[in-house]
């Protein structure tokens, strides 16, 4: 698996920055979802659904990292 140095840095940045972005997105949603769940536990499913929506961005980052490293 020979990976040129800069490509590795690029792959790392793709995952890392996407992670930071998703984290920033999730913090507000997560707080609101926990609040809603404290009011009514029935919100668990919908709360989880809303919270993890920004997470897909990290997967994009990951896919980009894969494309960089393997292709």
């Amino acid at each position, binding site marked *: 698996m020979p990976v040129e140095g800069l490509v590795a840095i690029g792959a790392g940045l793709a995952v890392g920055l996407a992670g930071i972005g998703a984290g920033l997105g999730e913090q507000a949603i997560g707080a609101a979802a926990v609040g809603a769940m404290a009011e009514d536990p029935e919100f668990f*499913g*919908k709360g989880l*659904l809303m919270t993890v929506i920004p997470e*897909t961005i990290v*997967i994009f980052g*990951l*896919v980009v990292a*894969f494309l960089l490293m*393997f292709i």
Partner: protein
Amino acid sequence: MLKPVEMVKVCIVGPKDYFKSTAETLHRLNVLHIEDYSGEEGYFQIGAPLDEASKLSRFVVTLRSLLSYVKLDGVYEPKKVYSVSELSQVAESKVSELESMITSKIDEIRDIEDRLRRIADEKRLIEPLIALGLPPELLSGYKNITVFVGFIRSDPLERIMDVTKDFERFIAEFEREYVVAVFVKNEAANDVLRVLQELGWREISVPIKEGSFQDKLVELDREEVELREKLEKLRAEIEALEMENLDLMLALEEHLSIELEKCELPLKAATSKYAFIIVGYVPKEKFETFKQETEKNKVVVLETKDDVWKPPTAFKNPSVAKPFELLTTSFSIPKYTEVDPTTVMAFFFPIFFGFMLGDIGYGVILIGLSLWLSRIFKTEGWQSLLRILLYSGISTVIFGLGFGEFFGFELFGHESILGGEFEHWEPILGNRLYDAPKLLVVTLAVAVIHMSLGFIFGIRNVAKEHGWKHAIEEKFNWFMALISIAFIITGFIMNTLAGIPVFSLNFAYIAAVPLILAWAVLTVMGEGPMFLIEYLTLLSNTISYARLLAVGLASVGFAIAFNKIAFEMLMPAGIVGLIAGIIILALGHFINILLGILDPGLQSLRLHYVEFFVKFFEGGGIRYNPFGRIRKYTKEEV
């Protein structure tokens, strides 16, 4: 399996005189989900509870408050089960007997708690006075002198000097404030009080006139200890008394609650002057027996087919899939007309979980853990959760064999820890680190299959509820979009493998074009042009399944890192290194297992909730909740 239990709507009509016996039968049969009568139609009114209801509810409240002193876990098994006839004779006298026995003790406890509160108040007064250091005799009993004793924010010395020169002040620090005693002549008292008040003065009323504050404090402490002992004893006595009568109390509580439920049944029924009507839903297969049994009470049971058709959802799943109902319901209860996705979830959830964790060692630990915990936590929710964990553990072991991983070590392939023959073997599913691109393609294929299933359910749900036109314009178009995405990804992969520029034309790209066109036309017709942008959402949904690989790689990465630190860096460095290595190894794998339960579990759940359910699942159904209950502490004679 995919559909809930089939229901029929029934209507029970009879004269009011037979209401009570009908209520008895309905409660015993425990199959009728009653639809509350809203009382909007003029002639029929909501019924009034039977006469005994108020007495019964008083008894039930008393019993429950008595029972609140005993800590019961959810799985208490009664030693004696009382029969209903036995209970109904003694219920009244027994409840008052138990009440009088326990109430006197409860009153005593309340008195003691009162006294304890007063002691605490007094102690709060005495502690600052001890800090001040003046004996109680000096703080009161003057004719011409006024004494101010209290808390203050800052030293009032200079401010008082502005008002009068004839005074004496004692001050001490106490809990971020000062406690102060000021002695002034009566004439100056008012002026001094004003000054003190400006400095946030709060008076302390001195609790004793003579003796010493220290002695008083010791006395109070002693009294407090005595009272607390007494309190503990009383509580233990109550608990012992209740434990002795526990089975009886539980039986009474159950019996009276049931009687109360029956008495309050008219609140759900429509009644006129002489007749009553109860409307509800019964599972179709039980309808005949239900009809026969109920009609013994000289009432009429009819199957109705009126406009209001809102049957409750009763899950009907094979027992293997039952635990997964917990996950479905925590999203929402499926509507009666909807596909119940529990069984599909029972199939895919463990597979996703296993694919992500995929390690024989971790899988065995998960299996052991779930079996062990299921002996400790007996409540229904925990049992379901642990059963899901067990399935996931088994799946983890199977995928672990496929990937050839054992606590992060490779079992097969050229780095095999087993050595010898195994170095020539290849893991069936490939090595997750070196074959990552191949597995990425697998996850995308899983995505297409999983979401296709979702769209097929969606087509069925919409077709059933709104007709085929809607189904084709709202769900089938997206199904075609998904297939076009599959073709595009295939084209991408083919070009990559062939080593030509990724977007050069090939047959897969061409195959996607008519699908995209058809999707676009249907979407514009059905939902409007704004929805075309949702194609990207679907694309991101598909790529989202790459997490199946990503989470797995993270757990492999952890395991390999810890193994490397322990075996290659620490252990060769002598005895200290050996010990440190073992600690690192244990700690690292412990953390990894913890993450290995949490993360694949959550991610797998997310793939179902976000990517799968939204394709078809609206939810908002009514849970089937039949009138009646399963008796635990009492039994009925036949």
